């Protein structure tokens, strides 16, 4: 009898939740919009920071710090919405997408950072495409001249030394412990992917 009543109560609860949810379906997306809004705000703050800073080079760490602050804002906002009943959580059984929106916010960070890094770097593929786009028909020798002009190997070797991954002593390049860790990670990746060395 009690079990039957509980089942009825549960069914009534679900039907009420669905009913209220159907009356205000926009609430379901409130967290998604909140996360996207905070991501846009974090990008804007980072761009503002990059415009104002006098420090040279990539400001990737600054973005990670800004994104972490905004992630905190998101968590606080979600908690406040739950505490203050701002979004009526009982109307959204299983919804609203709090965790999903948080995951989307976290995933958008590295995507932005990759695009941001590309503003400061020239890749060989991009150089080839740009050269062919501007110069029309090019021979192998022409393309090689453009690639050599950019000195991809020299600049990358210098970057590795500046970042502390490698050192240049007695005309030889030697890996530092941080470079060794990267090399180990790449070896593991090669075993998993089963592909030749990239580059």
């Amino acid at each position, binding site marked *: 009898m009690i079990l039957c009543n509980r089942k009825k109560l549960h069914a009534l609860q679900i039907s009420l939740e*669905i009913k209220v*949810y159907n009356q205000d379906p926009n609430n*379901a*997306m409130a967290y*998604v919009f909140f996360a996207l809004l905070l991501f846009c705000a974090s990008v804007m703050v980072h*761009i503002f920071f*990059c*415009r104002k800073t006098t420090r040279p080079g990539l400001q990737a760490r600054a973005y990670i710090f800004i994104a972490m602050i905004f992630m905190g804002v998101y968590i606080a906002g979600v908690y406040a919405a739950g505490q203050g009943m701002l979004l009526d959580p009982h109307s959204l*059984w*299983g*919804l609203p*997408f709090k*965790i*999903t929106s948080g*995951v989307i916010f976290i*995933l958008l960070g*590295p*995507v932005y950072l*990759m*695009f*941001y890094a*590309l*503003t400061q770097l020239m*890749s*060989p*593929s*991009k150089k*080839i*495409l740009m050269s062919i*786009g501007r110069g029309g*028909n*090019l*021979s*192998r020798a022409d*393309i*090689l001249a453009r*690639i*050599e002009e950019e000195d*991809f*190997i020299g600049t*990358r*070797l210098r*970057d*590795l030394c500046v970042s502390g991954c490698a050192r240049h*002593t007695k005309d*030889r*390049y*030697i*890996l530092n412990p941080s*470079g*060794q860790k990267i*090399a180990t990670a*790449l*070896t593991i990746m090669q075993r*998993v*992917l*089963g*592909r030749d060395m*990239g*580059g």
Partner: protein
Amino acid sequence: MDLLAAGVGFVSFGIFFIIHVITFRWLQPEKLLRSLRVCVLAVVALPLVLTGILFVNKVMDAPLLAWVLASLLALLITGLVSLVYVLCVFGPYETSVRMRLVREIERRGPEGISLQDLLRRYSSETIMNVRLRRLIGSGDIIEENGLYRSGSKKNFLFFIDIIAGMIKKWIGR
């Protein structure tokens, strides 16, 4: 439903990763970009199929609209995780000059490698040859009588370059 959407997103990426690890082992560089595009597009449809199966099996009591939203968010998560994997993990492994240099230095052990030895194994010509094979295979450039010209103007690199250009303009340096 919240966890279900995130879970379906990550499970779909897991399936993409397994397919990618199995099939890309024997893939030649010239087929890499095209295969990656096809693979990502095919796998993006997976969250829709998975949530459809869960909906038909009535795994959870939720209105239809909630299922539709969950499948779209799962799709977004799969797309983003795939993009992060391609841009931040697989892309640098396959194409980064720095990563290749780290491995070339590592091969020689603690005594290191001289620039001359390094250039014998990995030079500007090697960089060019690998990229030309890849770009010709993807149709981004066309080779005719030993001359190279643009194939498709709306390629993936072009799209990435537009977004990077916009960010550069906003940053102002």
